[in-house]
């Protein structure tokens, strides 16, 4: 059986075959490298949800296996309740101060800009274009000046795909990660100070305001970083995985012609793409999952991408069905750590697909697509498509 800890498996798109076999034959699988893989929906949901048996404080991603997580107890994703909930509440409150709809016009403008190359030429790299999607959201949300966006995009790519020579900003992967990470923190630090002096209507100003509970400035910096990186490693891959499938399977016109299915279709896109394919936890005590006994202190990887294709929950799971309801996918996680930006991600994806469908009557994949090489991020690094503009363009 192919190794789920090997990024090459995902780069070749072979993870689904491995997950299917595991779900059917060995749903709680012990790997030679000393971690467990959980692939059924019910078990994945339990591992993500049950924070008393499964802790987030010893690394939440497979590439941290065997190392200490420096963010443990200090950042939301790496902190267990009840401290997690105390840290999350202020950010949640700030995010609710202003309706997400307020950002819609700026996001639509940015999306039309991303799709413009598809109208200017016969073909364009959709994967490259939608790497700008997170900033299309974070720009208006955090009030990021337009002129800063190209550099931010470079840094975000370097901070999330440091192994890829195309994105490196320093000599090697660790140098790239360090440089990108520090420059982004410095950038947000600068911005937080600026908003402390001259508040605007953006989320950073709200974090520092009396209404937002006057968040500690260091926490505000860290929240900005997490929001931008969180959006960056997920949103583009939902689009690229979904458009690839729609073009390949011929489902583009079917969904594009049913505007009433925008919401359900976006949920299906999230299920289908599952851009964050796993989260890791460690058992805090002996636990039984699907009849298998796990000792305390063991690393357990919950494969969200597999849970979202589990036929026990989703009929015909390997078919993209924009009308699928109910659709209780785990793409945003489950329980206390459920994605804090999920409403913003949904808004952005709805606006993206609505704009895509308004712009192109159909799309076709041309050239050889290139998948992301990562055990965590699933999507395409390169996806050249040719769009048929709607009449009147």
């Amino acid at each position, binding site marked *: 059986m192919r190794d789920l800890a090997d990024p090459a498996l995902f780069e070749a798109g072979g993870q689904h075959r491995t997950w299917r076999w595991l779900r059917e034959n060995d749903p709680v699988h012990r790997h030679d490298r000393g971690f467990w893989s959980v692939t059924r929906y019910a078990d994945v949901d339990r591992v993500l949800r049950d924070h008393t048996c499964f802790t987030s404080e010893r690394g939440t991603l497979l590439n941290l296996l065997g190392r200490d997580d*420096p*963010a443990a107890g*200090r*950042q939301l994703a790496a902190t267990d309740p009840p401290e997690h909930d105390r840290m999350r509440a202020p950010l949640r409150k700030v995010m609710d101060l202003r309706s997400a709809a307020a950002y819609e016009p700026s996001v639509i403008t940015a999306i039309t800009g991303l799709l413009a190359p598809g109208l200017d030429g016969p073909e364009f790299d959709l994967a490259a274009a939608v790497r700008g999607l997170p900033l299309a959201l974070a720009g208006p949300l955090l009030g990021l000046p337009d002129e800063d966006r190209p550099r931010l995009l470079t840094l975000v790519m370097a901070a999330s795909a440091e192994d890829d020579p195309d994105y490196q900003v320093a000599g090697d992967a660790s140098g790239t990660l*360090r440089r990108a*990470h*520090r*420059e982004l*923190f*410095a*950038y*947000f*630090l*600068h911005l937080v*100070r600026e908003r402390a002096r001259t508040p605007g209507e953006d989320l950073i100003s709200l974090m520092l305001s009396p209404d937002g509970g006057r968040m500690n*400035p*260091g926490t505000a*910096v*860290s929240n900005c*970083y997490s929001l931008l990186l969180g959006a960056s490693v997920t949103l583009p891959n939902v689009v690229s995985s979904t458009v690839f499938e729609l073009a390949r399977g011929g489902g583009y016109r079917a969904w594009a012609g049913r505007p009433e299915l925008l919401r359900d279709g976006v949920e299906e896109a999230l299920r289908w793409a599952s851009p964050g394919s796993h989260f890791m936890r460690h058992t805090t005590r002996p636990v039984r999952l699907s009849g298998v006994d796990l000792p305390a202190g063991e690393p357990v990887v919950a494969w969200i991408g597999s849970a979202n294709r589990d036929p026990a929950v989703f009929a015909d799971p390997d078919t993209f069905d924009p009308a699928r309801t109910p659709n209780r996918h785990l793409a945003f996680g489950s329980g206390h750590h459920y994605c804090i930006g999920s409403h913003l991600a949904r808004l952005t994806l709805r606006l993206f697909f609505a704009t895509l469908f308004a712009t192109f009557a159909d799309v076709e994949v041309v050239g050889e697509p290139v998948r992301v090489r990562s055990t965590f991020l699933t999507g395409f690094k390169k996806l050249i498509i040719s769009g048929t503009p709607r009449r009147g363009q």
Partner: protein
Amino acid sequence: MTTVTSRDDLELESAYEAPRTDIERRLAGLWSAKLRVAPVGIEDDFFELGGDSLLAADVQFAIDREFGFEVPAWTLFLSPTIAELAEVIGSPAPLDHA
């Protein structure tokens, strides 16, 4: 957490150099408090002493309060030694070119 790590127990590339000025001494004291390491030399790298980006943001705000003005945001992240910080703080008209 009540422990303080001895600088000798860390494997640093820099040799210990004691603070020479009042600004350097105040910075060293502040770093020791935040990093829980003592003593801190003026050529020691903040990140090698155990600092990370989260802590760096905290330390920058503490420095602002300590010295009463804003040190450019890049300084601690990209030039992470006390000697370099002190030079920026000690210069007569610090410009925020960030």
